């Protein structure tokens, strides 16, 4: 499963610091990318066996897709018409990727991360064993 391009649109108020605002968009998205496609805290018999960040697999600078961001300006409720951003950019991507996989190959995945192994098993009508993955 390879993510080629992400286009996002955000309902924003007044942007006070444009660089920091876009940084929140990008940071939230790549956290979502990790959650959706690689990050995995493996627990076996009640013990965490993911030993370190290399096994947990944060996205690296080589894993990021092309990105298009569209900010849709609306009136915010805060002072200066501000609205929140940051965590909001984190929410949609895992579901969007799962839907893209379903659209492409007809496999409906409800567990994260979405891995090649999960898609392969899904194509055979099987599921990953949650206790060992």
């Amino acid at each position, binding site marked *: 499963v390879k993510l080629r391009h992400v286009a996002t649109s955000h309902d924003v108020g007044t942007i006070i610091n444009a*660089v*920091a605002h*876009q*940084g929140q968009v*990008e*940071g*939230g*998205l*790549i*956290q979502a990318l990790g959650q959706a496609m690689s990050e995995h805290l493996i627990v076996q018999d009640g013990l965490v066996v993911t*030993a*370190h*960040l*290399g096994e947990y697999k*944060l*996205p*690296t*600078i*080589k894993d*990021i897709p092309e*990105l298009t961001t569209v900010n849709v300006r609306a009136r915010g409720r805060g002072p200066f018409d501000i609205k929140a951003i940051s965590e909001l950019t984190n929410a949609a991507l895992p579901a969007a990727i799962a839907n893209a996989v379903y659209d492409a190959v007809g496999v409906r995945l409800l567990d994260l991360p979405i891995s090649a192994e999960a898609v392969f098993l899904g194509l055979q009508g099987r599921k990953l064993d949650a206790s060992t993955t």
Partner: protein
Amino acid sequence: MRSVKIQVNGTAVLRDVADNRLLIDFLRIDLQLTGTKEGCSVGVCGACTVLFNGLPISSCLALVAHVDGGEVTTIEGLPDGERLHPVQQAFVTHGGYQCGICTPGQILAAKALLDANPRPTRAEIQHWMMGNLCRCTGYYKIIESIEAAAEASRK
């Protein structure tokens, strides 16, 4: 114990250290250079990156004995007095940091890249920098910062 002589940020440091003293503990505890951050402690995150004879190494995996007789550069060694190094300034201007823990390592790795390759392509930046993890920025602004620092050095 052993006696070591290391150029740290341009100053000669003479110390007696235990054979198993880690470079990161030597820098942070013995020399009080706390700009170097410890992340994973096993060499996968890049937060503890320092330059040894100009090249990036993980100070959490290096012994002081390894760098005896050489030059070590930490983030404290980059500014010229009150004036930030161009790579530092680019990270500030272009939002190449958020929480800051990975930032000293990112900046030192980026400096080593630009020293070796003053005009890197985006793919070359991504290849060189992939040993430095960042949880906050999503990396786009780190790339922008390094491109801006490369651009600034051409003027």
